[in-house]
C-alpha cells in the first residue's frame, strides 16, 4: 500500500507575531492517501492556524485528488488573512502542479526560507 505522512512544525523567529505553520509532506499523495492531507488541513484550521507552508521536499507524487485538497481549503484560509504557500518541490511534483495550472493560484517557492520571508513580509 502507498505510504504518506504529514508532520507539523512551527516557525516562530523572534519578533514575528505571526507564526508560520509548516506541514512536511512525505511519500505518495494519491486518491487513497488524500484523507490524511485533508485531516491535516482540518486540524490546522480548527486551531485557527492560517499561515500554512507546505514543504514538499519528501513528496514523491501528488495526484489530482491531492491537489484538490489545496483547492478545498484555500478560500477559508485566505478569508482569514492567511495563505497556503508551497515550497521545495521536486521537478516531477512541480510538473504536475504546473500542468494543472496551480502556479497561477498558489505561491510556490524553491526554498522554505523564501516562503517564510514572504509570510513575514506580510506582517
Amino acid at each position, binding site marked *: 500500500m502507498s505510504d504518506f505522512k504529514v508532520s507539523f512544525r512551527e516557525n516562530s523567529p523572534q519578533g514575528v507575531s505571526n507564526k508560520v505553520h509548516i506541514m512536511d509532506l512525505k511519500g505518495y499523495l494519491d*486518491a*487513497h492517501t488524500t484523507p490524511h492531507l*485533508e485531516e491535516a488541513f482540518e486540524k490546522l484550521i480548527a486551531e485557527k492556524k492560517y499561515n500554512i507552508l507546505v514543504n514538499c521536499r519528501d513528496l514523491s507524487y501528488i*495526484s489530482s*485528488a491531492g491537489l*484538490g*485538497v489545496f483547492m478545498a481549503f*484555500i478560500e477559508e484560509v485566505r478569508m482569514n488573512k492567511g495563505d497556503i504557500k508551497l515550497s521545495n518541490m521536486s521537478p516531477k511534483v512541480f510538473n504536475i502542479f504546473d*500542468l494543472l*495550472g496551480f502556479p497561477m493560484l498558489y505561491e510556490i517557492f524553491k526554498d522554505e526560507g523564501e516562503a517564510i520571508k514572504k509570510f513575514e513580509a506580510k506582517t
Partner: protein
Amino acid sequence: MTLFTRVLSLKQIFSSPHTQHLLDSTPLFEFSTLVNSTLDLKFILGSVLLTLMAKLRVTKSLVLLKMAPQATLKVGENRFRVENCKGIGSDLLRKDILLARPPKKDFSISSAAPPVWKVFSRAGIRQIFPIISHDTVLGYFGIGGRIDTKLKTPRKAGRFSSDEKEFVDIFINVAASAIDKGIAFQELRSVNRTLDGKIQELKTLFELSKEFTAVVDRERLLKLFGFTLMGHIGANRYAVCLKDGGVVASRIDTSPLLKFKEKVFSLVTSPMRVADFPKRKVTAAIKAACEAAGIAAIVPLQSQNEVKGIVCLGERLRGSGYSQADLEFIYSIGNLAIISLENSRLFNEAIEKQKMEDELTIAREIQNGLLPKSLPEIPGFQIAALNCPSKQVGGDYYDVIRTNNGKFVLAIGDVSGKGTPASLLMANVQATIRALVPFDLPLAECTARVNDLLFENTNANKFITFFWGALDPDSRLPAGQAGTLRYVNAGHNHPFVITADGTVKRLGEGGLILGIMKALMPYREGSVAFETGDMLVLFTDGVSEAMDNDGNEYTEERLESFLRTVSSRMPQEIISAVQEDVARHVSGAPQSDDITLIVVKAV
C-alpha cells in the same frame, strides 16, 4: 532561397554602394549565429524586430505568425496572429487576421492596402515582408514610422528603397530557418505538454477506478470525487445532485437551479457549458438560474445510458473557461463515480437485507420455541394444530396447557406487528399465561390481569387479539356428553363450534383486545358444552384474510362453509383440508401473515 543563392545576393549587396550603410556596421553573420543559437521563438522574434528597427531607423514594427489550422476555418483560409510588436502599443498584440492566399512577396500597405491589412496601416506600419522557409509562408514582419531627417516629404518618408527592401528580405531569410526551428520547437513543447496532461488524466482515471472499487462508503466516494474534480480543473465550487438522492455534495448554492431539476436532467445529456445552452425558451430560465448560482458548466453522471445525476461546476479560479476536453474528462470520472455510488447503494441495501433476514431468523426461532412441541392428550377428545409462519414472521401464538386439576387451557392469539418485536411480545404473553394457569383463577379475572400487565409493559401500539378457554373433559358425564369449555374472547376472530348435526356457533363472549387500555369493564366468560361429534375450530386472521393475487380474501364465510363439508373427518385431516382449500384460493400468491389453526373434536 537556397543558401547558395542567398550568399550570391549577399555578395551583390555588399558590392552595391547604396546599401553599404546598411551592412558596414551590421555583423549579419553574427546576427545569424545569434538567432540560430537558440530555440526560444520569443527571443528570436524580438531580436529580429529590434535589429530591423535599428538598421532601418523605423519606430514601429510587428511580426505575425501563421497559426495551426483550426476546425472553424474555411478550407484555404490561413490564420495569422500578431506575436510581437514594438512602437504601436499593445492593442494589436495577439490580433488575428485571415488570409485566403498569403502573399509571398513584400508589399506596401499605405492607403491602397487590402482591407485586411488596414488595421496595421492605421497603426503606422508601411511595409510587409513575408517570412518564407521551405517555400512556405511562416508569417510576416511589418515595419513603419521611419525617422529620417534627410527626407522632407512625408509621402516619401514612408517609402523604402528597393535596396532596403532587399536587405530586409535577406535579413529575414537569414532569420527564417531559426524562426522555423523555433516554431517547431514551440509546437513540440506544446504537444509534449498536452501529452503530459493526457498522461495525468489517465493516471487520475486509473487511480480513481482503483480507489472507487475499494471504497463503499458513500461519503468518502463523494469526497474523493470532489477533491479530484477540484484538483483537476482548478475550481473550488461544485455541486453533485443525484436524480433520486438530492444534492449530495455542495460547495455551491444550487437552490435556484433545483426548481428546474427535471428539466435540467433532460436537458443535460452530455457535458455542457452554460454559455452553450441551446437558445430556447425553456433553457433561458435554466441558464439564468445557473448564472445566478455561479454555475459555468454542467456535466451529467450517467450509468447504463441513464442520467443519474449532474455535477454543477463553478468558474475556474485561474479564469480560463472549460474546454471540451476538460468537460469530457470530468464526464469520464463522473461516470466512474456514479457507478461506484450505485454499487455502494446496492451494497448497503444487500447488507440491510441480510440484517433483516438475520432478524427474521431470530424471530422465527423465538416463535418456534414458544409454540408447543407436542400437544397433550385430552381424554374423550382429539386435537390437532397447525402453525405456518409467513416469510415476514407474524405474531401468531397458540398453546395447549394441562392444568393441575385435569382441565386443558386452549389459547390462541395474534400479536400486532411482525418480526422480532412481535415475537418478543408473544414470549411475554406466553410467560404471563403459563404463570397464571396453575393458580386456577377464573378466566375472566385472569384475562383482565394479562391485559393490565401487557398494557403497563408495552407501548399503546402493541396489542393482542386473544382467545382462551378451559376445557373440562368430564368422563362422569352421561354418554354422548364430552365436556364443557368456559372461555373468554378478547377481540379475537370468533372460533367456530360445529356440532354433529351441523349447527354452527361462534364464540364471541369476552371483551376488549389485550394491551390497549387498563381493564375497566370486567371480561365476560362464555361457556359451551360438547357432545360427541362436536368440534371446536380456533383460527387466526392469517386463514380468513389469506389473499389471492387480486387482493380477494378467503373470508370467514368460506371457512365456515368449507368446515361444514369436512366436519365428519378427524382434526388432523380437517386441518390439512383447510390448508389445501386456502392454497387453492390464493393460487400461488405469497403468504403475507402467519396461519394458525387448532381443531378439537369430541370423539
